[in-house]
């Protein structure tokens, strides 16, 4: 058997890598270096080289503006709500699904809960806005039918985090439950048999066998989500917000979009985007190192 290690790699392998190298260079690495724009007063008409330098001015402007506290707070609030309310739902859903006996019923339930994940968010946001509309929305029609005043949900600052979180739960729980289902499937059934023989009831089985077995998965997913909370699903927030409730719905990413692309304030928005990247990076790296210390869980690598 030919075991001689070739001194040179088969050039074919490098050729195969050309598309991805070009792609990443052009559309990832060059933009990354483009964050230098944040240090200039960039005008697309003058171009990068002729635009005047501005140093850290835009960072200073952003940090000392009312926007900084606002978008940071909103981002963290939405992230926090997610971890508190949305995170447990897929777990519970998976536990419930797993205990259904008839396979066809189980499949049916899973099919339905998984469906919203595939529907585009444009559609989901559109439906949500419609259902919550004060005059024509079903929710308010119901409220009126039981004698309550209609509430203008999409107009109230305080409602947004709840609405957003609920919609996320609606859309993604079925999908996120799959990971937990997989973990549940991996539990050795003999453990349950032994428990039942020992006379352990369902609740006991749940707390003694099931939960500990999937705990590594839960912790891992939790840490992954923490790393992600800063980049709170941008498109979803964008599609749900309107200019009345910007105070609680403007997160860092939508702010970058609004100032940068809609307002053509390129340098300023790039500075804000850079801030978010660094912030997110810190979160990911720290949660990752915690994950690494967690014995049973595999790290992101």
């Amino acid at each position, binding site marked *: 058997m030919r075991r001689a290690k070739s001194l040179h790699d088969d050039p074919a392998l490098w050729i195969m890598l050309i598309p991805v190298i070009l792609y990443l260079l052009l559309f990832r690495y060059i933009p990354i270096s483009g964050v230098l724009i944040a240090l200039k*007063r960039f*005008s*697309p*008409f*003058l171009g990068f080289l002729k635009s005047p330098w501005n140093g850290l001015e835009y960072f200073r*402007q952003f940090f000392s*503006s*009312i*926007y900084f506290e606002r978008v940071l707070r909103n981002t963290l609030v939405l992230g926090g709500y997610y971890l508190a309310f949305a995170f447990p739902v897929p777990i519970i859903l998976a536990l419930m699904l797993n205990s259904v006996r008839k396979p066809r019923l189980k499949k049916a339930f899973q099919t339905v809960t998984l469906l919203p994940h595939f529907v585009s968010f444009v559609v989901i946001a559109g439906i949500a806005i419609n259902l919550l509309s*004060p*005059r024509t929305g079903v929710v308010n029609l119901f409220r009126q039918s039981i004698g309550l005043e209609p509430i*203008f949900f*999409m*107009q109230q*600052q305080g409602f947004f985090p709840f609405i957003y979180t609920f919609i996320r739960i609606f859309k993604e729980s079925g999908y996120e439950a799959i990971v937990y289902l997989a973990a549940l499937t991996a539990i050795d059934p003999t453990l349950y048999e032994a428990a039942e023989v020992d006379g352990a009831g369902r609740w006991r089985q749940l707390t003694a066998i099931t939960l500990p077995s999937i705990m590594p998965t839960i912790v891992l997913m939790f840490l992954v989500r923490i790393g992600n909370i800063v980049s709170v699903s941008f498109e979803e927030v964008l599609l749900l917000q*309107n*200019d*009345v409730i*910007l*105070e609680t719905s403007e997160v860092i990413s939508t702010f970058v979009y609004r100032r940068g*692309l*809609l307002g*053509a*304030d390129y340098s300023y928005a790039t500075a804000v985007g850079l801030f978010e990247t660094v912030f997110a990076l810190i979160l990911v790296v720290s949660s990752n190192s915690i994950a690494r210390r967690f014995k049973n869980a595999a790290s992101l690598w």
Partner: protein
Amino acid sequence: MSKKLLVVLLVALFVGSAFLACKKEAATPVATEPTALSVWAVIAAEIPLVPEEIAAWNVIERKTNTNLNWNFVSSLSEVKDQQFNLMVASGDIPDIVAYYEKSGGHTTVMKLGSEGAFVPLENLIAQHAPNLQKRILNDPAVREAVTAPDGHIYHVPMLSALSAARGWFIRDDWLAKVGMQKPKTTEELYRVLVAFRDMDPNGNGKKDEIPMLARRRGEDWAYNLGALAYAFNADVDFVLRDGKVAYGPAEPQYRDYLAYIARLYGEKLIDQEILTRGGNPRDALLSQNVAGVLHDWFASTADLNTTIGKTLPDFKLTHFAPPMGTVNKPFTRIQQSLVRADGGWSISVRNPDPVATIKLMDFIYSDEGIILTNFGVEGQTYTMNNGKPQYLAAITANPNGMGMHESLVSNGAQWKIGMVQSIDYERQFANAIATEARLDYMQNYIVPAFPLLSFTAEEAETLKDKLSQIRTLTNEMSARVMVGAMSAADFANTVSEMQKVGLADVLKIYQTAYDRTIRK
């Protein structure tokens, strides 16, 4: 030797005269290919347009020897601004650009002009455009409004014929039903609104009336409602107090205005959905016969008398004077300057033939051009009656069911380009009620508005940072007071916040800019 010299002289003479002859020939205009120009323009009404089929524009092209290639953009501000920014960013700027900012104005055009995207027009106008010269260069008010901070002119504006723009309207038939008179003060207005709310003027047995509605414009919910500020000698934006620039919302009397609208909102006298209502709430609510009082554009609102009058025979909407609160004379600052903030066009640096273009723009300002861009083609869309152009049924009773504005636009008139609106258009566009309202306001209530200022690049940078925050605070906190989430008195805290953000710097910049204009 002398023979040679003679030959040379003769040849020179020949060549010289031939040369002169040729030059003369070139001086007389030779029929050449029409100049092809690409135009990027905001569409004046959301309807499909095919310029090649529009008679008026065919005439314009023929007379100016141009061939225009139009690219229209929706007038919805979100779309329009984004597409403009994309276009500029791509560097691929069409020959002619007709753009105005989100809520009106040409600061962006001026800024880009200074950076070299658009061609300065003063010299072109002076040399090739007599009509533009007359109306722009020789009219100090107009020239002032279109001159950029760097001293150049970068766009040919759209001029309006009337200055009265928006005002107060009330349902005459409802007033009759509740037995009250047109309100003169804010307290009287309050009582009328209460009557509208409780006495069921639309007679359907349900308490579904929305006494006052006020359309917003994009995120500016106070666009119309803010007119109530004048009743308290307040202002929702910048205002002049004895030559000194002040920011309305920072003044104490602004809180009186806030308290008033909070009271109205809290007692359900104002449309409860004013902040989020989409579509066209004015037309929708009025035609559903639930609204009684509003502040809006004269012409189109008065127009509703005809259209809604078809389904609601008693419907009668007439104007009334701005209500007085703490002031003792009714007034409003809302008006349109002759230079409209929502129209005009510029010559881009990529334009191959600025001379031909300025001549085209000049033609549109000429008497013939004014007719074409206001009325269309004689015989098709208008006819001359006693020397005055009068619209035909194609416009006034459009066979496709289009309103007057849309009919005009589809016939090539009233586009948001550099044109001059004719007073005869205004007279016919508005019905009698509107004209009466406009004249009343123009003669009795309109006072000077805050002047249009222009800023240097440095000033604009500071404003961009601080003023945007201040305006956000104003907008959001005022909304909070109105819906009752905050008391009017607590708005004073918002004012302190504005100070912290840098209101003083903003006022200083504005004062400097204003002083610049009076020095001229």
